[in-house]
């Protein structure tokens, strides 16, 4: 098992290098440091000296990939690519173009993101599984059909609509919760209720439908029929046989997103003004601060790969027949 995990981690290295090369190419080859300097300095009539100075200050004065000026050493290391991208591997995020330390920002803004994403994830999963099980209980009935139609309708409504409706009714008309914003500590709960509810509601349609299919697959298996044939009550069949076995594919399929919960959601956070990593990224995108965007892309990829490894491990945990090799 340990050997497998180590090998998977090593396999992740070329992938992360690939991610870095890709983002680097996107950001630097199309948008050269000179253009970045012009955008950041924000002046049409800027003299070349100020541009040079800006580049030296932020370390953008080096060659992009290969440093052929200096052939003794630093052929590959004394370049922008190495400086800006490969340092990320030791989680050295460097400084944003505004001069703030990105690592500190991430540590600070991670918690609000988690405070929204984790409850949404847990409540959403529970609600979806409960609904799906309830629908499966009445399978092949009019209620089943109606519930599935409702799910398709819910899925077809834009997520933005739920946000607008929620903010308008809960916050503006009925004054139950604040429209947006965030406070640290226990006060955060008031601000978190609405985003969590809306996050859960917008996921109900798709989630319930998917889990219903998985439960139905389980419900059609032979052991369930045997259980019924020997006279096990319907509810016991549902909770003792179908639920635990149906949960296996569900839980293993959601493991992959758990690490990414740290990243927060770009949309939820910007709609509700939560100072998490999602809104951090969005602000960086709008301010064209590529140092931050690059760091966030890297962080996102790392978390995704960790999620993939966790998925594999979770398979062996719930199903002893699966051996990692």
């Amino acid at each position, binding site marked *: 098992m340990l050997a497998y995990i180590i090998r998977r981690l090593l396999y992740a290295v070329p992938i992360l290098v690939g991610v870095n090369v890709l983002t680097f190419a*996107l950001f630097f080859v199309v948008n050269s440091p000179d*253009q970045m300097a012009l955008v950041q300095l924000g002046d049409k009539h800027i003299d070349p000296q100020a541009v040079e100075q800006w580049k030296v200050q932020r370390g953008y004065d080096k060659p992009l990939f290969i440093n052929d000026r200096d052939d003794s050493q630093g052929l590959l290391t004394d370049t922008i690519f190495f400086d800006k991208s490969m340092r990320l591997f030791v989680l050295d995020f460097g400084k944003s173009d505004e001069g703030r330390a990105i690592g500190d920002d991430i540590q600070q803004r991670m918690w609000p993101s988690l405070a929204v994403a984790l409850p949404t994830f847990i409540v959403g999963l529970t609600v979806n599984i409960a609904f799906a099980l309830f629908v499966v209980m009445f399978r092949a009935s009019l209620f089943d059909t109606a519930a599935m139609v409702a799910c398709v309708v819910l899925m077809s409504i834009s997520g933005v609509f739920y946000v607008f409706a929620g903010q308008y009714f809960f916050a503006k008309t009925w004054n139950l919760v604040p429209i947006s914003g965030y406070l640290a500590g226990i006060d955060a709960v008031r601000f978190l209720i609405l985003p969590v509810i809306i996050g859960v509601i917008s996921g109900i349609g798709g989630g319930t439908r998917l889990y219903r299919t998985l439960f139905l697959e389980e419900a059609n298996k032979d052991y369930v029929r045997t259980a019924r044939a020997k006279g096990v009550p319907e509810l016991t069949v549902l909770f003792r046989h179908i639920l635990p076995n149906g949960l296996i594919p569900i839980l293993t399929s959601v493991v992959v997103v758990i690490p990414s919960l740290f990243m927060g959601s770009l949309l939820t956070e910007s709609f509700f003004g939560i100072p998490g990593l999602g809104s951090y990224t969005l602000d960086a*995108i709008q301010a064209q601060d590529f140092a931050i965007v690059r760091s*966030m892309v890297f962080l996102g990829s790392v978390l995704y790969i960790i999620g993939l490894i966790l998925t594999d491990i979770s398979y062996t945990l719930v199903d002893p027949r699966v051996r990692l090799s």
Partner: protein
Amino acid sequence: MLAVQPVVLLSDLLIFALVAALILFFVQLARDPLARGRWRSVFVSRIGSAAFLVILFYVLMALLDSLHYREPLPAIATSGSVAEPASETMTEPVVHYSQEVKSVLDAVLAGLHGQDETTYSEPFSIYSFARENQTSDDGNVVRAFPRLAHAGSHLQEGDSVAADVWQRSLKSVLTGVAIMAALVILHWQWRLRCTAQGCGLKSDDMGAVLPWKTIYITLGVLVVGACWVLELGQYYHILGTDKVGQDVLYQGLKAIRTGVLIGTLATLLTLPLAILLGISAGYFRGWVDDLVQYVYTTLSSIPGILLIAASVLLIDVYIETHPEQFQLTTERADFKFLALCFILGMTSWTGLCRLLRAETLKVSQLDYVQAARAFGVRHGRIIGRHILPNVTHLILIALVLDFSGFVLAEAVLSYIGVGVDPSMASWGNMINEARAELSREPVVWWSVAAAFVLMFILVLAANLFADKVRDAFDPRSAG
């Protein structure tokens, strides 16, 4: 009548090419008896054929809106002007064309378009939504809601708006019903004659099993709705006007093209890539497989929305630094739009690629594929004859399932500022405006409502249709 200058945008070309390709694909599928049977089960269901008609209606609007042209400007008398070029010998005057690019849909909706007010107005209202200073007859300045310039301008002071709307609605609905009735009767006659004479139709033909009642009703609703909009749109702003006084319904209908195109182009632009890489990874294995797996793991590990946002920013930079390539605003917006479609496709092709690889791995183990290999049949032929037909259902299902996702994604992307060009009509841009509109008092709700409803109908139809297609084609969900 002056001739117009056609404008061919890249996305226009692409959409027509793709629609042609899709039709060819369906014709090809229809030859295969197995696929025919599956399609029949899609269209026999009432939901399937109703959803298909609605989608067809949207696609038709998008196609009409994809035939662009520029109208010539009226010739200006240039006698003795300073800017007179040395072309006095020319007999034919040079025709200058308007910078504004119009489409055939604009011509159809001429009643709705070009009757702009100055600012917001409520649906069916003939008064503006904002008070303005007005000078009354005795010279006093009062703040009142001014009459709109166009909406209800045929009404006299004191006429009832409701009565007029009611009267015109009745007239237009009756027209629609009459058109529909004529269509139904014609079709009924034709079918009766066919069953009597058997004009080449077999008993298992689609015509015998299609749910005609549902089709008539759906078509009827669409026809009557269109009549109603065309009639009333000439006299009122059915869904009000937006901030700069443009008709909201017109904007919403123009946005159909953006929505439909983004749904189709985003998948289809990257479809060849997914098919090629997925099948060759599963078929050739070895280093090809490793390479393809590496590529799609790398791409899918980048958070999609970040990749989209970053790429859109870069396209903006490219457009800013190469202004000479784009003469018209529409061309610039179109380039950005196509790039957005491509990027959206790039973030989603990996899923299909993975599926295709797994399925190809399975299919290439089948005995007849092994036999073909043993006989020394060339790789290209094996893939074309044996593997591709076995994975077509995956491609089809992915196509229809992704469509609605992209339509919804467009709205969200425009909202965070990395969507289509602001000059393009799109539901995302309309919703984007709504952030300010919803915080007004009283609330301006009609613009955002129009965007949501029009989007909802398309996405719902697409989702329902996708469900039926999946049920019919996915062997796992059979039974």
